[in-house]
Structure formats: structure tokens, C-alpha cells
């Protein structure tokens, strides 16, 4: 079963992700900050992380390179409230695709599931 790490500081958003994705039969662990996420990654392995960009403390796009150090095979989905967000150069270098960036609110959650499966499949190769 694919293990997902959800990082979002907004409770209702976090809940919507974990409920929806659990229904879609992913194994979901949700935390509210990048720091918690990093701590979790040290002990448990995940296939895909769904990360909010703007977070209290460490931002999502800072978290990703550090998480990559811990679990190089981990795949990522970025979620942001900003319309003008562009992935940083280092993320693009890591192979980040526009299809991995989602704008909040996500109006078609199915598209998120498709993207997660795609990223998880990439990690398995």
C-alpha cells in the first residue's frame, strides 16, 4: 500500500486531504509542519509527500531538498494558495513537473490521486 505524508498547517485542509486519500486506499500520515515531517521521515518510509508551500517555520520548498537527503526515492506533490507560485530552481533541477504543483483549493481531487499515483510509480522504478 502506498504510504503518503501530508504536510499542511490548516487543519480543515489537512483533514480533507487525509480523509479523501484514505478513502482512495492510501496509507496516510498527516502533520502540520515541515519539521514534524522531517522527524517522521527519519523513522518511517513513505512513497509520496503532499506538501503545502507556505508553512509556519520551514517552507515546503525548503523541506523537499532536505527530505530528499533522508529518503531519496520519496516523490512530491506541492500544494499552494498562491496563484503566482513558481517552483524554485533547485526543485526544477530535482525534476519537479508542473503536474506536481496544485493550486488550492483543488477542485478535482481525482486529478490529485492521478498525480500521486504517477509520482509513486516513478519512485518504484
Amino acid at each position, binding site marked *: 500500500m502506498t504510504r503518503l505524508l501530508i504536510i499542511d498547517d*490548516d487543519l*480543515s*485542509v489537512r*483533514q480533507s*486531504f487525509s*480523509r479523501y486519500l484514505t*478513502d482512495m486506499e492510501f496509507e496516510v500520515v498527516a502533520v502540520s509542519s515541515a519539521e514534524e515531517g522531517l522527524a517522521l521521515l527519519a523513522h518511517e518510509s513513505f512513497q509520496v509527500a503532499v506538501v503545502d508551500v507556505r508553512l509556519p517555520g520551514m517552507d515546503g520548498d525548503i523541506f523537499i531538498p532536505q527530505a530528499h537527503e533522508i529518503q531519496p526515492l520519496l516523490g512530491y506533490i506541492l500544494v499552494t494558495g*498562491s*496563484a503566482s507560485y513558481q517552483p524554485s530552481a533547485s526543485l526544477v533541477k530535482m525534476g519537479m513537473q508542473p503536474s506536481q504543483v496544485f493550486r488550492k*483549493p483543488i477542485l478535482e481531487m481525482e486529478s490529485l490521486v492521478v498525480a500521486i499515483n504517477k509520482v509513486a510509480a516513478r519512485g518504484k522504478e
Partner: protein
Amino acid sequence: MSANVRKTSIRKRLVGLIMLICTVAILLACSAFFSYSWLNLRSRQVRDLSTHAALMASTCQVALAFDDAVDGSEALTSLQATPTTAYGLLMRPDGSSFAEYRRLGFALSPQARPDETGFRFDSDWLVVEKAILLNGEKIGSVFLQSDLSELTAFYQQSAITIFIIIVAVLLIIYVLTLRLQGVISTPIAQLAQTASQISGAKDYSTRAQKHANDEIGELTDAFNDMLEQIEKRDQALRQGAELLRATFESTGDGLLVIDATGKIAEYNDNFVKMWQISEDVLATGDINKMIASVSREVLDPGGFKQKIEQLTQSDSESIDEITLKGDRVFERVSCPLIMDGRATGRVSSFRDVSESKKAAHELNSLRSLLSNVIDSMPSIIASIDTEHRVLLWNREAAILTGVSPEQAKGRKLPSLLPQMSQQLERLQEAIAQRNPQFKRALPVESDDQNRFWDLTIYPLVSNGVEGAVVRMDDVTERVRIEEMMIQSEKMLSVGGLAAGMAHELNNPLAGILQNVQVLRNRLLGDLRANQAAANACGIDLTAIADYAAKRDLPQTIDTILSSGKRAVRIIENMLNFSQKSDDHFAAHDLAKLLDDTLELAANDYDMKKKYDFRKIEIARHYQADTPKVMCESVKIQQVFLNLLKNGAQAMTANNAPRRARPRFDLRVSADQELVQVEVEDNGVGMDVDCAKRVFEPFFTTKEVGVGTGLGLSISYFIITENHGGTITVETQPGKGARFIVRLPQRRQLREVAS
């Protein structure tokens, strides 16, 4: 009169003197002559008679010796030959008569015998006795008597004649003297007369007449000389006095001379006029009365009087000022009047310095005002000469450069202001061509950041001073504010919602919309978890689906989702506006941009509250297929939004014309170069003054809090500065307003700050 007396007395004295001298001289001469001849005659008589007697003695010697009386008598008879011998006698030694002769008719009178000298004179006669000697023995003597009466008579006669002659001569002398004394006395008299005339009439131009080249002539010359000198001196004195008087009167100052006794000695007209002293007071010559009358004019009469007292006692110079009523000020210069080393009074001059004081004061305050103005300017102001050397350096310049005005003077401007070193051509142009030079927002790299300066170079051509005034304003803030204004106005124009807030809205929206999808999934989705939960509750999933369909739950959920989508779209639009647009020029269809903006405006929540766009009739007059225009869509949309918002406000304003339904007429048309967009409303419109000012920043007629007055100024800036287009307005009060935007199809960059 006295001169006359003196004059006659000189003449008389002269005549008298001459007469006296002549008389004495003549008398002396005559008497000398007379006496001489008299004595001479007498001695001759004596000699003659003695000779005669000696002769007689020798003749009669024999007769006596022989005692021959006849012979003796005979001898005596020879005496007849000399008629003057009136008597002869031969005597014996004993004195007895021997022989005698007697002239006829001669009455012998008792005669005195001659003394030892052998003769004797009487008035009328002369007697001589001579001894007759024989062999040394006296044998007798001869006695002769001469009759002098005739002689005496002759002398008497002569004396009378001489006297007459003397008298006649004196007469003649008198007449001559009378005649000739004039030679001497006339010049003197005339001199005297002239002198008396001069002393009487004081006319020193009179001259004495010179008569001869003698001492009197010399005297006359000397006198005339003296007169001339006196006349010259007199003239000089008079001229001096006149000059002094003229000077006294011609000076603009009021002059007053007080003598040693404290009386008014002199004053000029100006003095009287300045102090407005009445004739009566002046006539008294009383200084105290004058002071009393004058001190009424003075602001501080006590001090004034005290100062006068002080001055009277002092013998030094003093300069002071007297303040009078009515803002007048006199300057007083008071000097002691020194004559022959003694103070004989004081001269005071008064000058009305009110005007000059006022003028000086005004000049001073004007000068300080000017320098204050120049110093208070928040600009660098420097004036330079043709060599670019600094003449004037204001405070701001000193503060910004750290170079004080004193240090700056004479130094070259570019060395003080590095900003200017790139602008030497402009300086040259301004000075040489006398063309003012302006440069807006000149970018200058300084050590930490780019700053912008407005530069004005104004040529100086006044009063022969050539050069220029350089003014520099640091407009970095303004340039930044201009950019910030656009930015902030954008946010305000999309319903007063900040971009950050729009961003923030996305999270709660996500909470709603994503959870709705969870809800839909768990209600209607084909999930294993749904099945498990239904089984656990003993409910059939299809029954739940039926129920949901019957209760329109899927549609309701979809409505939520579509509403959410709309909200997302609005936020997207707003976020669009909040983007800092750096050079997003692209080809856009203005008609589409206008429509998009209209939709945005209609959806603007804040705007909706105030005026419902759906109630506004919108008439589109779009020319088909207008060319696309190179522009920044966001900014152009912002302009359109401003126009639409203003129009909507104008049409829904309380004083808007109520007859017609609010209506926008929107037009888009194009020619070769331009695309023109018109936004016309039928609102309140504007009067001419208003229309002139609408594009001014912060010009608003709306209440505080309602309008910032920035909308149109930002629009103006965007259209003209960013896009090289134009924006104008046509309007009349009560007849609505039509804003016309013209944009060039190809991009025409107008530099803002470079």
C-alpha cells in the same frame, strides 16, 4: 565833517608853515644883510676917518711942531673935500684947541671923546682922535667928527623899502603857496576823502587817484593796493559767507547752531520744516521754548531733553538717533563749534533717516527672506559662473554634500556634485545658448542604491552675471511612490481587498471545497470504506444513493462546488492584479480586456454592495476585428476598471439624473496606428474646472474614505507613461462623461526613470 576839518587844517597848516618859513627866511636874510652892510659901513667909516685923521696928523705935524696955527687951519680946510666930515680939531697935547674946522651949518654939539680904540659912535656921528707924533713924542692930536645923519636917514629909508619889498614878496609867496599847496595837499585830501568815502560806504571797489610818482603817489598806490586786497578779501569773505549760506540751505539736513550762551544762532529752512517749528517760537531765539515745542514730536521727550543737556555740556562730537512719533527717525550729528581753539557753541545736524532705515530694514529682511527661502528649499540650489564655479550654495546642498557654503564657493560644481559630471553638456548648453535645461528622474548610481534626481539648469543673464542656477531634487522617493501608488491603487481598485488577503482566502476555500469533495465521495462514491460502513450500520448503499438523489444532494454538492469555483476565479483575478507586473507586455485585444474587466467589476463584491452592475445597461459598440495592442493587460484592465467604477459611481450618485436608466456606452475602434476605447456614462458629469483637474493625483470630489482621488491619476500614468497613449475626457455637468483612451498598436516606450 571831521574829515573836512582835518582837510582844511592840513591846507591851512601847510600854507601857514610855508609862510612862516618864508617869512623867517626873508627876515633872517634881510637882517643879516642889513647888519652886515651896517657893520661894514661903520668899519669903513672908521677906517676912512682914521685914515683921514692919520693923513691930517702927518699934514699937521709940521704946523704943530712949529706952532703954526694958520698952517694948521689951512690943513684942516682940506676937510671940505669930504662933506661928511663935519668937524675937525687940532689939539695940543694938553688938549687945547690949535686949529679948528667946522662944516658950514654944522652945529657943534658937546662931543664925547673917543675911547682907547680911537673912535666912538653915536647915533648921528662918529668921532676919531689921532695922536700926532714927532720923534716918538706926542706933539698933539687930530680930532675928526663925521656926520652920520645922512647915512642913518638912508638906512631908515632902505629899511622901509626893504620892509615893503618883504611884504610884497610874502604876499606873492602867499598867493603862490595857496596856488601850489594843492600839489601836495590835493592828493592827500583826495586820499583822505576816498578813505572817508570807503569807510562811510564800505565800498572797497573805489580807488584813489594817483597824481604823481612821488611819495604820495606811492602812498596812493599802497592805499589802492591795500584796497584791492581788502576788496579781494571782502569778496572772498562774502563769497565764503554766501557759499556757507547756500550750503547751509542746500543740504537735505536740518541744521541748527547754538551759540555759547545757549541761544539760537543759526538754522536752516530744513530744520524748521523737519521739526515743524512755528515762526513765533523761532523768533524768540529761546532754545528752551524750541525744545519744549519740539519734544512734543519726540517719542521719549524725557530722554531727549536729557540728551540735549548732556550735549550742551560736552565738547565732543556725538551721533545718535531720535525716534519720533509716527515711525520717523532722525539722525543727529552734534559737533562743538570751535573758534580760535575755544568752544563757542554747537552745531547740530538732523537727517530724516526714516525712509533709508525702512528701506535698509526692508532690504535686509528681503535679503534674509530670500536666503531663507533658498535655504528652506528641499532642493540643492547652486548658482555657478560660466566656468562652473560655485557662487551660491544653499543649505540643502551643504547638508547633502557635507560641503559648507564657504568651502563650496569658487569650487567647480562637478567636483562637488558627482551627479553633474555626466551633465556638463547640459550645463554648457544652458549657459551658452541660454536655454533652460530640464531632466526628469535622472538616475544616478550612488554607492548603495540607484537614486533619481530631477535636474533643472536655468541660465543666468541678469546684471551682467553670466552663469546658471542649478537645481537638483532627489526624487527617488517620488519615483518609488509613483510605482507604489500604482501597486496600491491596484489593490484598492479590486474592491479594496488586499492581495495577501486574497491569498489567505484560498486556504479556507480549500477547507470548504476539498471537504465537500470528501463528503460527495463518502456519500455517493463507490468506496470500500463506504461499503464497510454501510454494512456495519446495516444500510444498503443503493438505498442511500436513492435517498440522496431524491433529496437533490448531488446537485446541492455540485452547487457548492461551482460557487466555490466562482470564488476561486474572483480570487484569481484579484491575485492577478496583485502581481507586481514587471514588463509583461503582450498583444491583447482591448475589447476582450474591457469585457473581462466588466465581468470582474460585476463580480466585485465590494462594488456590488454599492451599485449593482446588473442594473446598469451596457451598450457595446465594438468595431469588428480591431487589431491587438501591445500592452500590459493587468494595467490596462486596471484603467478600465477605474473608468467603469467612476462611471458607476457617477450614475448612482445622489445627484445623478434620474430620468434615464444608468447606461454605459462602450466603444472600441481603430485606425492605422491607434486603438481607441471609449467609456461613456450618463451620470452627473463635470464642469470645466473639475474636468481640467480629474487627472491630478488626489483630486476627488468624493467624501473622505470613499475616494482617494488616485484612480484617474494612476490611469493617466499608466496610459501616457507606460504605454505612450493618451487619455482624455469630454463632459458637461449633468450630461455624463466620456473617457477616451487611445493606445498605439505598437509599443512606444516612454522612459520613466532612465
